[in-house]
């Protein structure tokens, strides 16, 4: 079971109260970008075995989007943080590094 803490309302709940929103921190390539960039933005997603950054929405709670860092293998959640964040904040990166020293960092 995946337990997430919503940073907007502070509730810790299991995943059926949330709706998944796919990979976080995508960089948008819109009009004027190359076909390869656009294709990558539209279709190519990371699928790591380990640390992953995701978007979630507290669908049955406060209704807000937020971001979560978790391990896809163990379902361990390293932290959740506001959706208005362009890259993983320092404290989340530190929490991941503490538990997964071999993690190569956010790229």
């Amino acid at each position, binding site marked *: 079971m995946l337990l997430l803490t919503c940073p907007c*309302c*502070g*509730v810790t*709940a299991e995943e059926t109260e949330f709706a998944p929103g796919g990979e976080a921190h995508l960089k948008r390539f819109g009009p004027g970008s190359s076909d390869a960039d656009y294709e990558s933005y539209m279709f190519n997603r990371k699928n790591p075995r380990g640390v992953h950054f995701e978007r979630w929405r507290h669908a*049955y709670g*406060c*209704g*807000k989007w937020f971001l979560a860092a978790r391990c896809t293998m163990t379902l361990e959640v390293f932290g959740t943080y506001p959706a208005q964040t362009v890259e993983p904040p320092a404290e989340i990166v530190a929490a991941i590094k503490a538990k997964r020293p071999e993690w190569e960092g956010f790229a």
Partner: protein
Amino acid sequence: MSDMAVSALPGASYAGFVTVAEAGLRGMISLRGDVAAGWMTDAVVAATGCAIPAQRRVERAGDMAVAWMSYDELLILCDYAAAPALAAKLGDLLSGQFATVANVSDARAVFTLTGAQAGDALAKLCPVDFGTLREGDIRRTRAAQVAAAIWVSGPEEMTLVCFRSVGQYMFYLLSRASAPGSEPKLYA
């Protein structure tokens, strides 16, 4: 607005190990805007007499209550007949601000669960640890397949708010969950 307003399931009640009762017509106003802003506090206090509730709390004053729904949404509970005037008053107080006021009384159904084991009945339906809720807390969650807001409104009373369109479903759920002999005895 019709003079013949009726609630979702007039008079529906079920006596199991907790008593489930449809609460009848309740006034409800949805207020959206920055809950932390000073102008919001001024308007809410002036209109309802209630303070701005802290995160996931409900503030009461007289027959009115203000519930924290998210950092940009408050739910004002009041008398059904008073809701249109209160919504209009809030609209005046908040004119020019980035906020919306909507009278949602007819869009909702309200159920009251009475009994020491109200949390046990709801624990069958909701992914919530009811042991962590105190009186005056409100928790938005799901009950089986539909959204619900559960307010611990008294020492042995919980008030559940859901959409009116799922009122019948919610009543069946709550009745089934509180059937005598099926007490999970988790909290009481």
